[in-house]
């Protein structure tokens, strides 16, 4: 951590000193309020202030054939020590050849098409200390060779080094009653130094965008086991192989989506699927607004996964984009456990202020009264969030 701090500090100075660098980024003020006290007395109550700084340094050389990107992430939190940290989201050198690219360094990669769950997205570790929606990721060290051929794009990833999932700290919210702390345990004797490999083929075939992925290495998704003192949970990371497929058919106003994987691990083999559609009506209510309707179904047959919230669940939502000058948007999402468990609710509104600011308001609700439902442990973590984000860039 300290080593990283010093390294990024030096890099930041070196980068900003050179005028040829593009320097952009954002600063976010995040205010959260939890109306209910947590299940664990160690969790803070009520409001919380967090500051997030995401600068980005970018430069291209050799007529664009080589590029460098450095994007650290800094967060300081009022109550939650688990959210006080520095991470390197990107520190990458990309070299572009005639029909190939070599991407070396700490990077983020995205696989998949569905909206409510990111099933097949396996390269990066999720940063669940930021939020539990699995949209924030930790930087992953890699060498990625990408080949562009007529029959598709092939990516090979060499992944040296593993990042453990981040969690809210002991005092933090949006966690189960026991915090996940302490050193992680691994199935592999090499621990977090196990070298993983991944391969992906993707291609557009008319209206269909198709991807097939393979991964062999440390499962990013841990099993959570009670620690000896009974006061916390310990993350245990297994080895696994994953074979996945993701597909989207874009048919007029309809986007049909599918993600599925088969995972083979030593304790069990299991499968998961997320499938559904996104349908958009343009110019609704006689205005310029677009209304998108989303419906997805999630299924998973694992017996072991600790946070397997979605074994047989339905997700529904809508997205209203006003298409006004301020890009006002409203997003609503809902999940329902079809096995009689609970549901979750999400409401999110956002709007640009002027040219450089964006404000958003989020409400997240967990409704569960079945103790056998994993959501039950989140029933007091309902939350309201207001965030104000400032963006800058030296490019005009």
């Amino acid at each position, binding site marked *: 951590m300290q080593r990283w701090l010093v390294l990024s500090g030096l890099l930041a100075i070196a980068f900003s000193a050179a005028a040829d660098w593009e320097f952009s980024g954002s600063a976010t003020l995040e205010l959260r309020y939890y109306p209910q006290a947590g299940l664990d007395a160690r969790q803070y109550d009520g409001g919380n202030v967090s500051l997030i700084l995401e600068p980005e340094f970018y430069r291209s050389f050799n007529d664009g054939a080589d590029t460098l990107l450095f994007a650290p992430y800094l967060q300081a939190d009022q109550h939650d020590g688990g959210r006080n940290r520095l991470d390197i989201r990107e520190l990458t050198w990309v070299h572009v050849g005639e029909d190939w690219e070599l991407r070396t360094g700490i990077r983020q990669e995205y696989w998949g*098409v569905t909206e409510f769950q990111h099933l097949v997205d396996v390269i990066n570790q999720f940063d669940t200390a930021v939020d539990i929606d699995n*949209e924030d990721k930790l930087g992953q060290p890699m060498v990625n060779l990408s080949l562009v051929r007529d029959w598709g794009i092939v990516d090979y990833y060499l992944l040296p080094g593993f990042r453990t999932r981040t969690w809210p700290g002991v005092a933090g919210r949006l966690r189960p009653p026991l915090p996940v702390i302490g050193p992680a345990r691994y199935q592999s004797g090499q621990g977090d130094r196990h070298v993983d490999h991944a391969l992906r083929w993707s291609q557009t075939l008319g209206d269909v965008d198709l991807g097939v992925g393979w991964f062999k290495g440390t499962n990013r998704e841990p099993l959570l086991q009670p620690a000896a003192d009974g006061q916390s949970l310990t993350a245990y990371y297994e080895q696994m192989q994953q074979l996945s497929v993701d597909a989207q058919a*874009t048919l*007029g*106003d309809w986007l049909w989506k599918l993600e599925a994987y088969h995972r083979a691990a030593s304790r069990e083999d299991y499968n998961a699927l997320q499938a559904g559609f996104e349908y958009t009506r343009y*110019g609704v209510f006689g205005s310029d607004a677009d209304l998108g309707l989303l419906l997805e179904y999630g299924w998973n047959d694992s017996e072991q996964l600790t946070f397997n919230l979605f074994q047989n669940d339905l997700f529904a939502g809508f997205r209203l984009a006003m*298409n006004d*000058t301020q890009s006002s948007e409203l997003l609503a999402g809902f999940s329902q456990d079809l096995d009689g468990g609970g549901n979750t609710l999400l409401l999110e509104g956002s709007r640009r202020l002027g040219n450089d600011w964006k404000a958003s308001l989020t409400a997240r609700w967990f409704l569960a009264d079945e103790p056998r439902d994993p959501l039950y442990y989140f029933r007091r973590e309902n939350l309201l969030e207001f965030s104000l984000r400032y963006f800058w*860039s030296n490019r005009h």
Partner: protein
Amino acid sequence: MNKRMLWIALLSLLPLLVQAETAEEKGLAIAKEAKARDTGWKDMQASMKMVLKNAQGEESVRTLRIKALEVEGDGDKGLTIFDQPRDVKGTALLSFSHPVGDDEQWLYLPALKRVKRISSRNKSGPFMGSEFAYEDLTSFEVPKYRYKYLRDEPCGEDTCFVVEQVPTDKNSGYTRRIVWIDQSHYRLHKVEFYDRKNSLLKTLTFSNYQQYLGKFWRAHRMEMVNHQNGKSTVLEWSDIRFDTGLSDKDFNKNSLKRAR
């Protein structure tokens, strides 16, 4: 009647035959000539700035850069990179346009590093909150309209053909457009847009034309005025470059991901 007399009679009919070209045929011929004169530019790069003004006169700014590749026998390929407003900086759009049917479009979302194939049906929606609809900014292709020549009219120092264009795409937001095309270079001077109720919605005027590669004319300023909501958008092009050596490899999902 001897043979010579017959020939003279036939020749005297020729002007009549020429005049018998219908208004529809003449409109189509003008569109084909305009397209022919704008063919062969290969590839292009440019920067664009849009200034949006609302009815109260408040302004907001959009800046973006585009790369375009001419595709023989098909619509153009395009890569659009957004710089402002800042919250969408780094977002990029890859599009393969087609003269008939839906275009193929992929959006790169930098926050998630995600490439998402999107529907291209939203032709009539506003582009980045401006008074330009998506369909106002796509490349001109002859099969996109049915044509009818209306009249000649003076425009500046030139004379313009005035032609009515009826969109063939049922997803278009317009019943028709009236365009003013000058007779010396077949350049657009003005377009009037009529909404689905056939009332005048917007007027687009082109100015500051410059010629590139000794052939291709580009307007550096386009002003769209919406008559129904009182808003307007001025679009200014700069740094226009042709023949920059772009090829197919600059227009795939990998180039979309690294577009900045």
